[in-house]
């Protein structure tokens, strides 16, 4: 199996606090991988190091067979990573369409081609009927969907989604699961997720972080049955 993304010894300290420690992580091409763990386990810190928002204290990252440990964030994105923020971070005062267009323009040239790509992405997430609205006026759930549209319009090799279903209604979560399965045909997906039904139904493989270290890895079923994970995270009930 070829690995799209690998890390070795990824470590990050925040003023003496060890947020992530010695993580060796391998993500094969085409997989949907869920990253779970209790609050403060280091999930967001870990993926922030992957895409270059935070420099690691130690460790190396390779992406598509290339060492990207020293690349700045925008160059990693240009290699085919896309990152959606945990706290929605859309351009609030710009229109929905312009938000997605900004994400599309790096890949797609020409106003017409951009407009088509934008409409296609908005249709996929179900926001196709409101391109001219200000992004800041969307409901929270719709802003999350807009984030995802901004990710998928980049046609990334790796799509990193940080808690994408947070704040979504149940019906929206069902639509989201279908969307993820659809996206996985063309992209590898790394998903930070708290909602266990999303993890169980979409992920091929699960990595559990606890206190900044990998506690367990396995299929969703294996993880569900794992005693250590139960104790640390899922609860014993």
């Amino acid at each position: 199996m070829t690995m799209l993304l690998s890390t070795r010894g990824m470590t990050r300290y925040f003023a003496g606090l060890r947020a992530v420690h010695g993580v060796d992580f391998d993500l094969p091409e085409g997989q949907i991988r869920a990253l779970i763990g209790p609050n403060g386990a280091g999930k967001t810190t870990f993926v922030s190091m992957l895409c270059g928002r935070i420099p690691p204290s130690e460790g190396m990252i390779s992406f598509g067979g290339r060492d990207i440990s020293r690349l700045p964030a925008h160059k990693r994105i240009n290699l085919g990573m896309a990152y959606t923020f945990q706290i929605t971070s859309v351009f609030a005062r710009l229109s929905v369409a312009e938000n997605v267009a900004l994400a599309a323009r790096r890949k797609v040239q020409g106003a017409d081609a951009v407009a088509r790509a934008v409409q296609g992405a908005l249709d996929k997430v179900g926001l196709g009927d409101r391109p001219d609205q200000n992004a800041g006026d969307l409901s929270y759930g719709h802003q999350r969907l807009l984030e995802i549209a901004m990710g998928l319009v980049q046609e990334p090799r790796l799509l990193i989604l940080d808690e994408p279903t947070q704040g979504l209604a149940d019906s929206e979560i069902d639509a989201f699961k279908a969307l993820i399965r659809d996206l996985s045909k063309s992209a590898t997906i790394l998903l930070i997720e708290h909602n266990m039904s999303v993890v169980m139904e979409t992920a091929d493989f699960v990595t559990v972080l606890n206190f900044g270290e990998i506690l367990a890895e396995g299929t969703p079923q294996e993880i569900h049955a794992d005693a250590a994970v139960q104790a640390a995270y899922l609860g014993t009930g």
Partner: protein
Amino acid sequence: MSATQKMIALHGGLLGLLFVLQFLLPAYHHGNLARVMVLASYAIGYNIMFGYTGLLSLGHALFFAAGMYGMGLAVNLGGVAPAPALIAGVLAGVVVSAALGLLALRTAGVAFMIVTLMFAQAGYLAVLYFGAYTRGDEGFVIQQAQRIMWGIDLSDPANRYFAAYALFAICLLLSLWVVQRPFGRVLVAIRENEERARMLGYDVFRHKLGAVVLSGTISAAAGAAYGLLFGYVGASFASVQYSIFPLLWVLLGGAGTVLGPFIGTLFMFYLIDLSSGLTSAYMLIAGVALVVLTLFAPQGLAGELRSRIWRWLP
């Protein structure tokens, strides 16, 4: 009408109006408007950085003066003709803004404001220090004989108006074009949410540097034209006052709108002009008007127009 047609009609309409006005205005206002158009070009340059990219500079007098002295020294010391002297002024703007951008963009926010302010002060002091060439505070006059470009006497009011008009039209159309381009859209994205723009794969530093150089170059072109058209080059144009002016004009007219700089410059110019005819305490009237506008039109005149009526306004 589509938004694009409206946009063309509005901006083309303004340029058409300004063109026609030169034949209609009495001499006093004719001269004023020529001055306003050159200063508005300066404000357009400032607006690229402040209004569209969200970079608050307190040192734009450095660029204005770079253009003015680049032109003026070329004429006065080099004996160069006006056209190449103007180019020298613009090039001085490119070099100074690129150098300032490379250094100052390592900082952000308040630190960026302070750094630009300090560089501009250093520029002002340099003008005074090299008084042997610049004539310091006193400045120097560019003689009428030195202001004849391609056989056109730029000290003549009609020619001067037309030259100012040409400069303003170029700057206005350039800024209109840039903000519609993908490059301009990225600048707005950086202003709105820099981290998000970076995580969409844009090289934020390079885009900001491009904005600083474009902004500085337009400002320098305005400075060079001002010196040539009005025949005087002096250190006061490098002082902090001339860094604050474009900020005020852009704020009043509407930061991040293409027309805002012109509206703000025109408004402020005539506010001071009219109130100084009424009282010697004219700055008080100007100050009160500014406070009222900031309270009731915080987005500036064109900005309010956009948020209330014309949403398509670029």
